[in-house]
């Protein structure tokens, strides 16, 4: 059973843990850039761009580790 996180919760986490990060939408994914790193496979959700789709939490686990913000992210949301 996939563990899902609302996209708006991910944005709130990034604003707290990755201040100044950049996000850009492409066809099916968000690219998040922070501190010289890019996470490119954050999905837009099952039906393309929507306001607050549920996103598989595994992407947040991967992104938080890649961007070097894991500890902060874990304080902000449940990543298990």
């Amino acid at each position, binding site marked *: *059973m*996939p*563990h899902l996180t609302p996209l708006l919760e991910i944005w709130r986490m990034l604003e707290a843990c990755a201040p100044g990060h950049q996000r850009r939408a*492409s*066809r*099916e*994914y968000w*690219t998040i850039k922070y501190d010289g*790193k*890019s*996470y*490119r*496979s954050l999905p837009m959700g099952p039906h393309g761009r929507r306001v607050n789709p549920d996103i*598989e*939490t*595994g*992407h947040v*686990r*991967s*992104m*938080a*580790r*890649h961007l*070097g913000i*894991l500890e902060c992210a874990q304080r902000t949301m449940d990543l*298990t």
Partner: protein
Amino acid sequence: MANQTPARLPLLFSYRDTLFGNGFLVEVQIQNGRALGVQEADGFWMYGINPGGMAASGTDLDTAHAAFRKTFSDMLVGLAIECDSFETFQAAVDVFARETNAGFEPDWESAVAAVRRDKIAVAGLAQAPAASPLSVTVSLKTQPRAEDNVPVSDALLAA
């Protein structure tokens, strides 16, 4: 030799894609990309180490790898759309593929150590040296062949 899927698998992968960019046809080959396969509570995840900026999931290793493979191709298409020349695409792919997920890299290394220590084997997954060097080749395709329509995909257990 243990022959069961452990909770963490250090993986090497080699892919080849042929795709269109803005004004060019290009072949991308990555050899010995690295990913960490993890059985999580919410499915089997493949976290990219190189490239570090991507991940995908499935119900098991096979479906997670299929999703990871598709996501990799999607990332290349995204880069092709962003780049206005072969040279910028070539550079962007190189940066993308070599960017390391430093947060997961220690887990990948410890998973390699576990494979060696416990002599872990996974059915259908051949082994390769964990130190196999990453190679990224982006080249203009001047003589496309019908076989280029079929992406090349291979995964190995790092040991």
